[in-house]
């Protein structure tokens, strides 16, 4: 291995999935989120808590950075030029960005796990195996999106997050994680599995729209689209194609064009070559009223 070879073929060395001999077939789960329709209502986050047995940690633990929300709404403000030295978090003008695990194709978290508890599935998901995790937290340190959450406490027993009878609302298709385990958004893999089994029983592939993630289902403005990127009929595929965002590129062709395009699709921290599976559609409005 020479340096030139390494540099020139960097994406081949770094890029684990997909490659020509291992294409995504028949599934590659991907998402697109339209920030123009997102109102920052947090319904997706709540739905995620309910679906995935996520503990609500409370204010104290939140302030210690021990929050567990797999789906969080990030807020950004334009610099307030008219009012220099104003408040850090003004009441108005926030832009919202739902942020969860980007299911990177070349995920930085996967390469550093000492016990291979997080790895790639053939359908392009970044899996997290709770019973294999030893809690080194290296993956979280290496995640550029900071979307991995660590169980600092045994929430079900010590903290009694779900006291008796309330534990009846836990989703049986998702593990209740114990202390010392890393967890993150799974693209609602339990729903994907269920749909795949139904499809297999009927001898077909999963239809577009058959799987809805919890966040997508709860979104009042349909900002979130989820589906199979390989399926040319899928809505998510059409959106990615229309926005000319390609999953296996770290620099999109449209960005090279002189004068730019008016396409809104982009992926966060694309230049890090993690190849995220979530495309965001930029907000059209200049700023909020």
């Amino acid at each position, binding site marked *: 291995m*020479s340096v030139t070879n*390494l540099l020139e073929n960097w994406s081949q060395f770094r890029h*684990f999935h997909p490659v020509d001999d*291992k*294409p995504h077939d028949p599934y590659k789960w991907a998402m697109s989120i339209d920030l123009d329709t997102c109102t920052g209502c947090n319904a997706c986050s709540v739905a995620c808590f309910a679906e995935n047995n996520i503990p609500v940690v409370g204010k104290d633990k939140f302030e210690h950075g021990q929050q567990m929300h797999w789906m969080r709404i990030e807020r950004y403000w334009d610099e307030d030029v008219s009012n220099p030295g104003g408040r850090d978090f003004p009441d108005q003008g926030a832009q919202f960005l739902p942020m969860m695990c980007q299911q990177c194709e070349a995920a930085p978290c996967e390469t550093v796990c000492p016990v291979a508890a997080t790895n790639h599935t*053939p359908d392009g998901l970044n*899996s997290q195996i709770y019973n294999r995790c030893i809690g080194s937290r290296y993956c979280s340190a290496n995640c550029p999106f900071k979307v991995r959450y660590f169980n600092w406490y045994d929430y079900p027993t010590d903290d009694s997050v779900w006291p008796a009878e309330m534990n009846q609302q836990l989703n049986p298709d998702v593990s209740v994680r114990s202390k010392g385990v890393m967890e993150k958004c*799974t693209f609602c893999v339990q729903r994907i599995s269920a749909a795949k089994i139904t499809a297999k029983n009927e001898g077909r592939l999963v239809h577009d729209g058959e799987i809805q993630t919890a966040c997508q289902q709860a979104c009042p403005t349909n900002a979130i689209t989820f589906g199979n990127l390989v399926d040319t009929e899928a809505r998510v595929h059409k959106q990615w194609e229309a926005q000319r965002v390609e999953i296996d590129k770290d620099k999109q062709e449209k960005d090279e064009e002189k004068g730019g395009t008016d396409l809104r699709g982009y992926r966060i921290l694309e230049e890090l070559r993690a190849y995220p599976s979530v495309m965001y559609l930029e907000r059209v409005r200049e700023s909020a009223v």
Partner: protein
Amino acid sequence: MLGCLLTWVDCLLGELLTMYRFIRFSTLLVGLFVAISGFAADSTVATLTTPDDLGPEVKQPIEFPHDRHAGNHNPSDPTKGGMEIDCQYCHTYARRSAVAGIPPLQKCIGCHNSIESVKDKPRIKQLFEAWEAKKPIEWKKVHDLPDFVRFNHERHIKRFVEQQKRPTQEACGYCHGDVKNMTVARRQKSLSMGWCASCHEKAHAVTAPGGTPIGKQAYWYTFQKPAAAAGATPDAIKAQGPNDCWQCHK
């Protein structure tokens, strides 16, 4: 000058790579050792497995005679043999959901209401007492997989019973043992991950032409470096069965 520098950087990178591999491997070994010794030392952890790998003995509220219900006919003395009832008559959800299900009391009463000859037997009396009191029988789970495992009965029944037309008792027996000769069901297999894989590796071998040693490692397949899987055929990629952790773990 530049070439010299490049060669030097090249060497350094090579060194680093070797070191990285070594460190990664040794971390794995140390991690495994710590995990295993930690598990062995902590005896307060509820035992999922026993020395014979078959789990703890389960005491059922009624000693249910599987042999009488599912066992073979005894032509010489019909009062002694079994009734040859299909497993799926009572465990009816196996063919259409992830779990096989324990039959509700209605199902027991449905038959036993009209079987006068055994109504005075103590176990049947217990059954009717519960029925009159409108209380379910609290059967204990024998084949209790850990919560982080996703197992689907439906897929297995579809494959073995519906597609391959094997007898139900044979198909169920792969995991549940010879239930028709038991009274209260006991675990006969370890139900460990390695045990699951022992079938799935056989049935879903992933092979590559050219001798790339990825065969029979279906669930390891996705960990292979692209170079190692270079000879893999498209068929190999489409191999059915669990070839990533999330198909069975949740």
